[in-house]
């Protein structure tokens, strides 16, 4: 009965869900990276505040993409309820939602003590007053005392979120492109890579403590370089994995590797160009921060393109 099989892509989860996956992964990775940096490498309140708030913002925007497309917004309550993990332990969205929520909560708590001390937040009307409330202060102090706990709680949920974005796609068995263990790996690597890129931009543009943060920047650059390299290796293996095997996979490969957006946009400008820019930075160094910032921007765009094309190139076989 397979004579009539046709192959189709889907139009259920499209560009907007790619944003969810992208911002979800990047936001979580950003937050996690800054917290771990703060805890173990170099205390850096500014970085934490940036990481926490941009992470939360990205997750907020990303989640709103999913939320906005829900058919019944009220019913979202069922996944916000933590008991969902006991009822639906096999559903990644359940895990993902909880990761996201708790990452935001713990992330906020980890950042709270820094906020209380931050001059910037002290200048924002209304927020200034709220931060001055006694119980907020109290919570802040408690968190400060248990900052490792908060930091780890946030980071674990953050890593969970990052990995979840890949596991989610992996849970759709009909699509060979998605239904393989390479996807969580690829998405995790990519999420951290985009997080590095984002933080490099933050360090270069927002925090601007050039000398003080140099070792950090170098570390991020190197990490990013390695992540990009890993991503290239994973993609390379994807390419060969998709060639042979199920037809769904082969057609996905055809769709991707015949697409200029994927080849030039993502692999070329999103991976190779930043790779070489950063490689040079690592080996020889650049005289200005500009090339690294260009590389970062390219990595950020590439990160989205990866998810966009992944959503678009998932192929279902329909035997009718």
């Amino acid at each position, binding site marked *: *009965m397979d*004579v*009539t099989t046709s192959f*189709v892509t*889907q139009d*259920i*989860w499209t560009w907007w869900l790619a944003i969810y996956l992208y911002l979800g992964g990047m936001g979580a990775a950003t937050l996690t990276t800054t917290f771990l940096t703060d805890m173990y490498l170099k205390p850096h309140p500014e970085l934490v505040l940036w990481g926490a708030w941009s992470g939360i913002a990205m997750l907020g925007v990303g989640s709103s993409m*999913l939320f906005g*497309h*829900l*058919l*019944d*917004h*009220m*019913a*979202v309550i*069922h*996944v916000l309820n933590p008991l*969902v993990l006991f*009822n*639906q332990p*096999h*559903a*990644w*969205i*359940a895990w993902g*939602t909880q990761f996201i929520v708790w990452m935001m909560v713990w992330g906020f708590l980890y950042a709270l003590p820094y906020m209380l001390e931050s001059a910037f937040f002290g200048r924002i009307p209304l927020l200034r007053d709220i931060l001055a409330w006694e119980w907020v202060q109290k919570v802040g102090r408690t968190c400060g005392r248990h900052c490792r706990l908060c930091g780890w709680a946030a980071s674990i949920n953050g890593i969970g979120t990052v990995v979840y974005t890949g596991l*989610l796609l992996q*849970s*759709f*068995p*009909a699509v060979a492109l998605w239904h393989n263990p390479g996807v969580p790996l690829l998405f995790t690597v990519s999420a951290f890579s985009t997080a590095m890129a984002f933080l490099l931009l933050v360090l270069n543009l927002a925090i601007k403590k050039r000398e003080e943060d140099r070792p950090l920047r170098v570390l991020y650059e190197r990490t990013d370089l390695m992540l990009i390299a890993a991503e290239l290796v994973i993609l390379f293996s994807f390419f060969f994995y998709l060639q042979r095997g199920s037809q769904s996979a082969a057609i996905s490969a055809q769709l991707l590797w015949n697409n200029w957006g994927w080849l030039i946009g993502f692999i070329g400008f999103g991976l190779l160009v930043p790779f070489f820019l950063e490689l040079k930075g690592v080996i020889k160094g650049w005289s200005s921060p500009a090339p690294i910032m260009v590389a970062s921007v390219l990595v950020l765009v590439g990160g989205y393109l990866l998810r966009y094309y992944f959503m678009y190139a998932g192929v*279902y*076989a*329909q*035997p*009718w």
Partner: protein
Amino acid sequence: MTRYAMVIDLNTCVGCNACMAACAAENQTPVWKNSWRTYVHDKEIGTGEDIHRRFFPRLCNHCSNPPCMSVCPTGATYQLDNGIVQVDEDLCMGCQACAMACPYAARFEVTYGDVREGREFFGEHTYRRRRPSVDKCNFCAQRVLEGREPACVETCVGSARQFGDLDNPDDPIRQMVASGTARPLMAYLGTEPNVYYIDDLKRRG
């Protein structure tokens, strides 16, 4: 135990679409936007002068190992002991992960707008749905519980659709399935579907 299943004999499906109409009326599906719980495809196959017109009915397979259910975060998609996979419209938030997970394109969305349209279409007081959700075939559980056949089966003028219980040794469909005369779609995916097809190409030389 009961394990409901459907066998579709492609040799006598005549592409009349009665099943589509019956299902739409029974289950009040949003047909105005071309969404159905069951479709009958009309395919031209064969090459050259060997032309075969195949009518291919499809619907949810009520998989024994349903990926739609395992991805559902709210528990809206669940399975009855008799194997029927259903969506609880009250629990479903409409994330559509299930639709992505289903290899058989069995699921579609019912939006707020569709609920409004549905009232118009099927009657304000008789339209049963109140909330948007993902929707799909439920093997007409509401009828099956009353001892009736699913709407599409009952009306199938080609008697192409047969409904039965695989766990009942006397059920005619059991033998068709056991003997391999009736086979499921894309079984290699491990979904363990419970809609089986009898091929229509065998007779032709």
